[in-house]
């Protein structure tokens, strides 16, 4: 088992006062807040900081952790000294079982078995929730996905261990971001097996992996459609590959940059199906070769075009 130095994680001394620990935690919680942090591994660091604080902010857990001593020499596995936890009881109200599901094996080994007695696990329901990342294509075709979930589980002696469950799930076509899918009877059976309670449902919130071209919004898809100046000026029919197949999109003559084109019914299949929105973006061709330069020069001579005519003239 890998030893976790919770004091180092929060950047405080071993004897730090509770107030200093709280202050250090809040500072780091702000730094690594997943919604605003620019740090590349913010989510991971936040989980580590939460874990450290879950232990050091709780006087019982902190005392027990201090009993463990310090990190073993590099390359050596950590083993708790015998009898280190005699007479200790953890109530563990601060962090829930689901927070703890993201914590390290070190945490679950040292603190898991005691906190099961507290109020944290199984808050009156055995439903379990997780987020599942799908490809946008899955919404068009439906998909089978293998999901791995880390769930806290109580054994016959009331000890909690993190267990990895693998489920094969068939996801129906037409799924949209933010929707919840339910797997009946696949929720956690926290505390339930012992009391003969029924396991709850597994609720999965659907999110799509970011796609380079398509941006789903509800049933609709949004994308940028790059066009050449002559396609915009003269009109054109351009083929566009969508998750549901290739679509021929008609660009009307005189299309302006920023114009939005809508193709009905080609978004995420549903009842009714979503639409696809294209934002027209005009790409300026380079004048790289002598021939291309010549063409630009003749256009400059022939076309009566002033892109700044709206500015008016200086007095």
């Amino acid at each position, binding site marked *: 088992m890998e030893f976790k130095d919770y004091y180092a994680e929060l950047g405080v001394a071993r004897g730090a006062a509770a107030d200093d620990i709280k202050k250090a935690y809040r500072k780091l*919680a702000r730094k690594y807040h997943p919604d605003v942090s620019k740090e590349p591994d913010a989510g991971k660091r936040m989980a580590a900081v939460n874990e450290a604080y879950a232990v050091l902010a709780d006087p019982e857990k902190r005392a027990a952790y201090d009993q463990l001593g310090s990190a073993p020499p590099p390359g050596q596995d950590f083993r708790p000294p015998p009898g280190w936890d005699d007479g200790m009881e953890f109530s563990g109200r*601060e962090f829930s079982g689901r927070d703890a599901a993201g914590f390290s094996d070190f945490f679950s080994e040292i603190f898991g078995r005691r906190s099961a007695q507290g109020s944290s696990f199984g808050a009156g329901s055995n439903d379990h929730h997780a987020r599942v990342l799908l490809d946008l294509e899955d919404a068009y075709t439906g998909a089978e996905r293998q999901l791995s979930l880390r769930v806290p589980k109580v054994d016959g002696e009331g000890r909690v261990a993190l267990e990895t469950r693998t489920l094969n799930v068939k996801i129906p076509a037409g799924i949209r971001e933010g929707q919840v899918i339910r797997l009946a009877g696949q929720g956690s059976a926290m505390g339930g097996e012992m009391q003969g309670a029924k396991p709850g449902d597994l609720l999965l919130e659907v999110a799509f992996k970011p796609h380079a071209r398509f941006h789903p919004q509800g049933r609709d898809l949004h994308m940028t459609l790059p066009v050449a100046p002559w396609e915009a000026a003269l009109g054109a029919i351009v083929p566009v590959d969508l998750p549901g197949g290739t679509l021929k999109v008609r660009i009307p003559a005189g299309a302006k940059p920023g114009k939005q084109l809508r193709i009905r019914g080609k978004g995420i299949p549903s009842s009714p199906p979503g639409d696809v929105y294209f*934002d027209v973006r005009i790409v300026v061709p380079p004048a790289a070769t002598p021939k291309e330069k010549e063409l630009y020069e003749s256009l400059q001579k022939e076309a009566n075009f002033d892109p700044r005519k709206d500015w008016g003239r200086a007095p």
Partner: protein
Amino acid sequence: MTGKEIREAEILQEACLTLEQLCAAAALERDWLIRHVEEGLIPVAGTVVAEWRFTTVHLRRAKRMHEIERTYDAEPELAGLVADMLEELDDLRALLRRHGLA
């Protein structure tokens, strides 16, 4: 669980989670959620608890508010204000992505 069996998933309707399901999903206490809905900090249609139905937008908001209150001992109103701003940020980021700017 062998992982060989295939489970059929069922899509729930848009506003689908009951109070109990939301509490379980976000690891929240029932009283905490009721208090926040009644004070208008988590806006939900319906006048009685049994009528309330939540979406994943509510789920995210409740988790964010709970985390802010816990981390900073924040007043619920302040956590609500932060959640409002984070939601605005989500919308703006989605808008930027749709226009290929992020």
